[in-house]
Each structure stands twice: as structure tokens, then as C-alpha cells.
């Protein structure tokens, strides 16, 4: 299966910036992830939501990239949420304890509902 290099698109819903991720989150994803995060921070959102619904592979380097984004969000006192992870990657978020610092939702609607009420 050929690798699908990561594509990231940013849009806004109220006070939340949503980063839609498509493809694979590995070492090749760093530039796209960081550029999307910088764009997502424009407008000083309270919440940044990472939507993984179109992500089919995350490796340990990808986990490190996500940790890096979460660190930036926490330093700027923004909440970071995640949605759309497959069961396998929900387990990996639990094992790595990422889900202790980043609430994980089944889908974008659930995450946005939480973002709006918090």
C-alpha cells in the first residue's frame, strides 16, 4: 500500500479551530502538522480539535508530533480535543496517556458540543 502523505485543512466553528487530518501521521507529517497548527492558532481560539477520521496510520513519530502540538496548546492555555480515532488508535491514546490530556470523542459533532458547553 503506498504511503499517503498527510494533508491537513483548518476551519473554524465558533471558538473552535478544527484541524482535519487526512493520510498518515509519521515523520513525513511534521511540516503539515505544524503548519496546520499555526493556522489553527490564528484568531486565538479557545479550543483546537484534531479530527482523525481520515487518518489510517499513526506511528511512534506521529505520536511525538501530536505530543508536540499538545504541548504548544497547553503552553498557550488552549484546550485540545480529538475525534474520529479508530478503536486501535483510541487504545494507543489510552496506553500513551494522551487521552488523559486530550479528551477523545467518537465524532466531530460530539467534540464540538463539548467545546461549546465547556
Amino acid at each position, binding site marked *: 500500500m503506498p504511503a499517503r502523505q498527510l494533508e491537513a485543512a483548518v476551519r473554524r466553528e465558533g471558538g473552535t479551530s478544527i484541524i482535519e487530518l487526512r493520510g498518515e501521521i509519521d515523520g513525513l507529517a511534521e511540516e503539515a502538522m505544524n503548519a496546520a497548527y499555526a493556522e489553527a492558532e490564528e484568531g486565538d481560539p479557545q479550543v483546537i480539535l484534531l479530527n482523525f477520521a481520515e487518518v489510517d496510520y499513526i506511528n*511512534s513519530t506521529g505520536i511525538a508530533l501530536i505530543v508536540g502540538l499538545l504541548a504548544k496548546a497547553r503552553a498557550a492555555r488552549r484546550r485540545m480535543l480529538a475525534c474520529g480515532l479508530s478503536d486501535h488508535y483510541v487504545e494507543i491514546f489510552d496506553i*500513551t496517556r494522551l487521552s488523559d490530556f486530550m479528551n477523545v470523542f467518537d465524532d466531530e459533532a460530539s467534540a464540538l458540543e463539548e467545546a461549546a458547553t465547556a
Partner: protein
Amino acid sequence: MSDPRPPTRPGGARSDRRILADFSLPSEPGNERAAMDRVGEAVRELDLEARVLKRLKTAVAEATMNAMEHGNDYRPEAPVVIRVLASPEDLSVLITDGGGDPVPAPGAEAPDLEAKLEGLQTPRGWGLFLIRNMVDEMNVTTDRSHHTVELVVRLKGGRDASETA
């Protein structure tokens, strides 16, 4: 191109193990995906639970990345050799590189996520931790010129088997 097959194989003395696959890949970025896909095909006949298969494939990809990066310095001419062996009791995937930086021993401690989030540690360093948590057993053997990581999934009575019983 030298063949990094080790003179002895972890668990290789067991006569009840069948070889499901035996192949090598150049140490090039991205080949961990090929490794996990080929191992996935090799174990298809075992009809593993989907969750167990995904965990195994993640462990194979991570161990292959480590072998290519730390063992072979991403030299394409240095192959990573992968063997898949099965017995009625367990499945073993042996991933061997040409030796280089010592393979860290599989410890029990989780990476310190708080320290990483505070910028006190590099965000990296999840590979071995993921591997350990994706399979029932991980063994590392080293001789003068090879490192081999053995990933073991119990097919009967192991953690995954007991969870689905």
C-alpha cells in the same frame, strides 16, 4: 549486501514452529509499512482477531523502524530480515538488523508524558513502549553483528486469548 541472519534464532530450536514468512527489506524510510503488510498477509491463515492483528502490525512497524534506523542507520544496502514463525501456542515475528547502536532493553517504565508536555524531555521515545504494549512478549537478543527483536503473540492462554475467551 550482507545477510544479517543471526547464527541462532530466538526460539528457533523449537521443532513445532512453522515458518510462515521469511523475507528482507532494504533500510529505507517507509519500508516499515511494507513489513507490517507482509506480516499481516503471512498470518492471515491464523485468523487472528482484528484487534490482535492491528496490535501485531503496529509492533512490527515500530520494530522494523528501529531496526532500519538504529541497527542499519537507514543504509538501503543493509537489509532488515523478518521471519514469521507459528506454533499451536504462539506466533513469533523475528526482526533482525545488522547491528549498530545497542537495542535498548525492554523496560517496564512508560515515557513521562508530563515531562514531554512541559518541554523537559523530547516528545519522541514512544517506539519501544508501543511495541511492549502491543504484543504479549518482547525479547531482544544481540550478538557481535546482529540485533534481533522477537515479538510474541500467544495463540492459546495468552493475554489476548484470555480477553476474548
